[in-house]
């Protein structure tokens, strides 16, 4: 079929619109159950997070809570936000900036016993970095401090 020019232009316009609609629909379908929500320990204490779903937990690593299991590679610690505490287990090498008393974001899921099983720990590589969820003011404050030094 040789499409007449007018016809061909119309087909192309329709195809472009369908592509954009298709992308939006596919994305909405995909985001329904694949987005990982961010929770603080207080959210988890309030029962907002469902066990078994991929999520992120953010807060401070409680001082004195970091313990290593006998296998040498499993670490247990507590993430707190001043209101609540959540125990976390993580099997792997902790990132370089993981410290007691500093900010951390753990990716993983809540087990039925309300322990957070982390697949990945994000503590940022830059001392100026703070997860935005934990507040930018603190990062700016620190940056100002170091500059003055």
């Amino acid at each position, binding site marked *: 079929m040789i499409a007449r020019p007018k016809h061909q232009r119309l087909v192309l316009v329709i195809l472009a619109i369908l592509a954009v609609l298709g*992308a939006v629909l596919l994305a909405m379908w995909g*985001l329904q159950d694949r987005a990982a929500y961010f929770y603080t320990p207080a959210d988890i204490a309030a029962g907002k997070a469902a066990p078994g779903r991929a999520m992120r937990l953010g807060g401070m690593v409680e001082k004195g809570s970091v313990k290593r299991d006998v296998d040498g590679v499993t670490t247990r610690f507590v993430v707190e936000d001043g209101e609540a505490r959540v125990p976390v287990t993580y099997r792997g090498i*902790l990132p370089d900036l993981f410290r007691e008393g500093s900010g951390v974001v753990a990716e993983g899921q809540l087990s039925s016993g309300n322990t957070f099983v982390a697949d990945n720990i994000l503590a940022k590589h830059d001392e100026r970095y703070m997860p935005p969820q934990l507040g930018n003011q603190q990062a700016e404050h620190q940056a100002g401090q170091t*500059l003055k030094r």
Partner: protein
Amino acid sequence: MTAEAGLAALWLAAALSLLGLFLSILHVRGKLEADRTVRGLAVVQGLLCLFAFAMLLIVFARTDLSVLLVASNSHSAKPFVYKIAGAWGNHEGSMLLWVTVLGLSGAAMAVFSRRLPSRTLIAALGAQAALALGFHAFLLLASNPFARLDPPAPEGRGLNPLLQDPGLAFHPPTLYLGYVGLSVAFSLAVGAMLAGDVDRQLARAMRPWVLGAWIFLTLGITAGSYWAYYELGWGGWWFWDPVENASLMPWLAATALLHSVAVLAARNALKAWTMMLAVIAFTMSMVGTFLVRSGILTSVHSFAVDPTRGGFILALLGIYVTAAFVLFAVRAGTLREGAPFELVSREAAIVLNNLLLTVILGIVFIGTLYPLMAEAVTGEKLSVGAPYFNAVAGPLAILLGILLTVGPLLSWRRESRPVLRKLALPALFAATVLVIAFLAWPQATILTKLGLALGAGLIPAALLPLIGRNPLRTPLAIWGMAIAHLGAGVAIAGMAADSAFTTEKLTAARPGETVEIGPWLVKFESVAPVAGPNWTAVEAELRASRGGGVEVLRPQTRSFSNPPTETNEAAIKTVLAGQLYTVIGQPDPEGRWQLRLWWKPMVTLIWLGGALVGLGGLLALLGHARRAWRRRAFA
């Protein structure tokens, strides 16, 4: 004085952009003959930007601590290469680099695109001047790289040690050349729509810019992926991090544009379609710049935490994109209809390629911005990662790969030969690998299995357009196409192989113990302290053997003092069959050290494929340049 000279050059460049914009408007409206003046202004403006950037390099090379930017980001004890790289390893410096590339692109367009009709070229230079003006304003008003610090700091604050890496020193400039090279495609599209001259001549002027930008984007993404792979020590090569997506989105749009501009150049079809893609491609560059530079997203790359800057870039983005879309809406209908083609033809295959790339782009775009939108609307904080992108965009990428085996074999306009017969052998390879995948690696995901099969089919299929041609008389552009498509097949095979065959071992071991991983026996010999120019480290010595020879790997944990930071330096051994990837972690009181080992068969194919894609682009660019030169020589 150096800093002041740089700042003065920037102000002057901004003023010349304004003048250039003004004169180009008068010229296009026919009120004034300003062709030569506008072109000259574009060149001078580009050179002034280059001068300002050179001044920034000088203050960084000298570690001039009376400049705020140097004091905040550099340090006198840093190796010289990283002092220089530090000039663009921060927000202000990288924006200056961005503007410099933008200015130089305008200058190059003024010099090299003379075959275009004068009205089109001057309108395009006017668009480029309007872009430059906005980003000059951003630099001068919100991100002055030359601000002084009074009194000067006694010592600088250092540079993020993660950025002290040869790969990363040249990664941002490469990506910027790609991002900003697309600005020329945007300006040419705007100019052509204003002047009403969308034709093959325009496509021929636009193609080298799109190809060039696309080559830099391809290489920048490939290098960035390898950097993340060895530097982060997580064993992964793509994390769907917003900043990675920020570079992927312009690449997807540029890939689509590259193909449609080829249709416009060869067949004078897909006119409005190509103009739209040119607008979208540079829009994605600006979206990428906005995402990275506004600090709105959490990432290693986000330095700025200043909301006014994000707002400024967002406003610029809004103005340029709205203006371009309005122009498109007004002018698209007036463009002459392109040449017709049939349902089974190369044009139709490229339309399908464009549609698939656009849908993938939309999916990546929505997934990247969804967390921002959700937080703004509902206040909920969330992140979108690999599960979404792989599941939603992955199958479309497979479809695109299948299309890639057929498309290049089709003729322009209409296909009447039985083309599918040529694909019998590649299809046989793919089917065999698919059957093997189901039998031998049932645990691999369906996407992985399809990826392996697609790689096996695409690698031979990509070479089919070369068959039956005399290799010496085949145009370079055809070689380029075949090699780039081959590279896509190689990269897909590498990605699927990494996901199917990687084995991982996480353990705590004492020196003297041996760990088994895949075909390797890795003996943990010792740990020892070592020191570098501005860091100290704990270094492990691992001896890996498989059958015959012994390979030595030395992973480290490095501590930097300025600023105080630690990084993991993975040790990677590349052999023909793949890579052995080793990371050392923390010690425990019993004298054991954490070791994380990966055996990754065929993983190197990912970056080899990326490099082949870039090489293919380069060959095509050379081929087109040679043809253009000959055409000029005979004209």
